């Protein structure tokens, strides 16, 4: 991936910020409006992918190396599991142990926003890792190595 022309770069530089902001909004307001951790995480990954397609893979991988990506991925999964385990402090597995708060407010619904945030982190970073793996670990580029698995 070399990156694209100046027009594509300029527009994606302008648009990528609002896309990521919208993804964060979808994750944070998942318990109030349609959306949630999964959809918001995919939107975050798509924002990073837009930058990867426009600028080439090096700037994006410099910001988020594969090792840190897998670390964040595991942190998201472990965070969701830890929220599940913390339910034991008040009773049973996956108990919503925090206070409910008043409905239709941002801080409400106990552990649901925290689960949304951890799922959004996990989904976003892991889908970014898929495209990074498909482009970084490209094994046969120009006949340097014969394609073994193909055909």
């Amino acid at each position, binding site marked *: 991936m070399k990156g694209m022309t100046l027009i594509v770069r300029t527009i994606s530089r302008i648009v990528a910020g609002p896309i990521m902001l919208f993804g964060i909004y979808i994750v944070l307001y998942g318990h109030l409006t349609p959306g949630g*951790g999964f959809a918001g995480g995919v939107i975050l990954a798509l924002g990073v992918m837009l930058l990867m397609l426009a600028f080439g893979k090096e700037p994006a991988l410099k910001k988020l190396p594969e090792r840190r990506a897998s670390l964040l991925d595991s942190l998201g999964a472990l965070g969701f599991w830890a929220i599940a385990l913390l339910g034991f402090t008040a009773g049973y597995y996956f108990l919503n142990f925090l206070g409910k708060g008043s409905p*239709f407010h941002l801080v409400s619904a106990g552990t649901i926003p925290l689960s949304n945030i951890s799922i959004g982190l*996990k989904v976003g970073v892991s889908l970014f890792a898929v495209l990074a793996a498909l482009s970084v670990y490209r094994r046969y580029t120009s006949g340097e190595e014969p394609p073994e698995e193909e055909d």
Partner: protein
Amino acid sequence: MEFSHVFYALLSLMVVGSIIAVETKDLLSSVVSVALVGFSMGVSFLLLGAPDIAIVQVVMEVLCLIILLRATVRRDDTTIYKYIETFAVATALIFLAVFLILSYRAFKDLPPFGHPLMTVSGEYLRNGLAKTGAANMVTAVLLDFRAYDTLGEATVLFVSILGAIAVLRRRGRKAR
């Protein structure tokens, strides 16, 4: 009713799109037809009153379109050649006919669409807000009532990405 006309038009568009995606010789047109099917499915979810699933469907369709385009456009030869086997086509047609007849008989006995709301979902709708405090009932079901399922889905995604990276990596492969 106006709504059902739009819905049936979308459904027939999806059927035509899937047939084109399977039958066309050009891989690029096939990918575009698959995207057409996915986006129409997102719009029909929206018409059925399920904005959560519609958002996920549209967003995942964009992601799959990017990955499929990158996988197909990079190859020099994007056309595929295939030989039509009469035996395979004949068996497929026979099984399709059997399936359509049986599903017609089964669908006749089904209750009308969306009419008797099931008791479990009625319980969720009545008591969900008081029990969880979440205004979005889909999220309340996903992350509170059925959070164990969501943990399983997160594990599936985690393991599949682990497998993708393990297959695609270059370092650590045994030198041949």
